[in-house]
């Protein structure tokens, strides 16, 4: 221990790596980065794939409004996930539980309202096959936003990595389903509740697993 009270080994290790660092940008700026990616995916997909056939029967507030709501709630979740990367700045457990519930509820409500307004174009003969395609679609579209969120998180120090991953996964899923909502021709409530809400839960789980892996890596 030196005269200033600093243990010699600690002093040596700090002095060996004392380069100036730039503080992380504020959460809103990092969220904006993910938002740009999510909106770009949204725009590209809508330019490439034709909108659902019954689009004209769905009121504007529900078609585009529903998508915008999903996008906003998704970005809210991503913002909260990124906050988890700053020690001491994470949200309270109750807020996290509330927001995770809000994510699933938003998904269910948008699906329910769409089913009421435009109850589907045609009956689905292979519900599992169609459902799997929607889940796959949501998962693939969510990957860019999820990867960027996790990369931004791992650059910081999430003290609750599983929670951060869960929020990031849910947020990415909602931004992805904002696209699927305008493309998927199936309004059947069972399809929406099982496969589209399932996509949110699945990606939350994926984010949680990502957090666990990061946590285990950190312990080694």
């Amino acid at each position: 221990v030196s005269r200033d009270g600093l243990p010699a080994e600690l002093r040596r290790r700090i002095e060996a790596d004392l380069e100036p660092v730039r503080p992380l940008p504020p959460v809103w700026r990092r969220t904006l980065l993910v938002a740009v990616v999510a909106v770009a995916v949204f725009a590209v997909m809508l330019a490439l794939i034709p909108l659902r056939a019954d689009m004209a029967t769905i009121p504007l507030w529900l078609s585009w409004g529903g998508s915008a709501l999903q996008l906003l709630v998704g970005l809210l979740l991503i913002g909260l996930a990124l906050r988890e990367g700053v020690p001491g700045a994470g949200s309270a457990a109750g807020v996290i539980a509330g927001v995770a519930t809000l994510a699933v509820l938003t998904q269910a409500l948008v699906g329910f309202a769409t089913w009421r307004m435009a109850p589907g174009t045609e009956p689905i003969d292979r519900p599992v096959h169609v459902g799997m395609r929607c889940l796959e679609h949501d998962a693939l579209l969510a990957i860019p936003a999820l990867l960027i969120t996790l990369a931004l998180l791992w650059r910081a120090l999430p003290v609750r990595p599983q929670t951060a991953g869960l929020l990031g996964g849910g947020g990415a899923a909602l931004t992805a389903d904002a696209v699927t909502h305008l493309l998927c021709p199936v309004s059947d409530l069972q399809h929406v509740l099982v496969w589209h809400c399932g996509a949110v839960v699945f990606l939350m789980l994926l984010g949680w697993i990502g957090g666990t892996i990061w946590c285990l890596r950190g312990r080694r």
Partner: protein
Amino acid sequence: MVGYQGGSMEDFTALYQALEKPLLRYLWTFVRNATVAEDLLQEAFLQIHRARHTYMPPRPVKPWVYAITRHVALMYLRSQRRRRESLAEQDLPEVPVPPAMERIADRATVMRLLRELPRAGQEVLVLHHLLGLSFDEVGQIVGVTAGTAKVRAHRALKRLRQAIEEEGGRA
């Protein structure tokens, strides 16, 4: 902290000197072993150093530092649980007892009864009553709202008082 982020060793030393004792006390509430608490203190400062870019001025420094320290302590406890090791309990000599508590019981009694409280309540009690952090700060460190932290501290203090009274009754 800003100077330390800019690469100043003097500022790191000042941060260490200012926080060494309170962090040691905080770590002791997790491990209750002075030697391990001192080892974890070094680990916490190394983690603080590795994560120094995550401190965003002008946010308060304390919740940030304590949250990292808590993370280090919890990681240690998890690894210890996996290895199924247990430590001999040791008092931390520097742990003070606030005058309000000293009026109702001596230091040794307070520390012993504090140890018997559930960890969540004990942690909040130590952070607020022993280390002087506000409930807002405690909430940020522990990951709950300030209101929840207040309720936890209130319940823990009530249990501590009850335990002290019972001890007095037995005596």
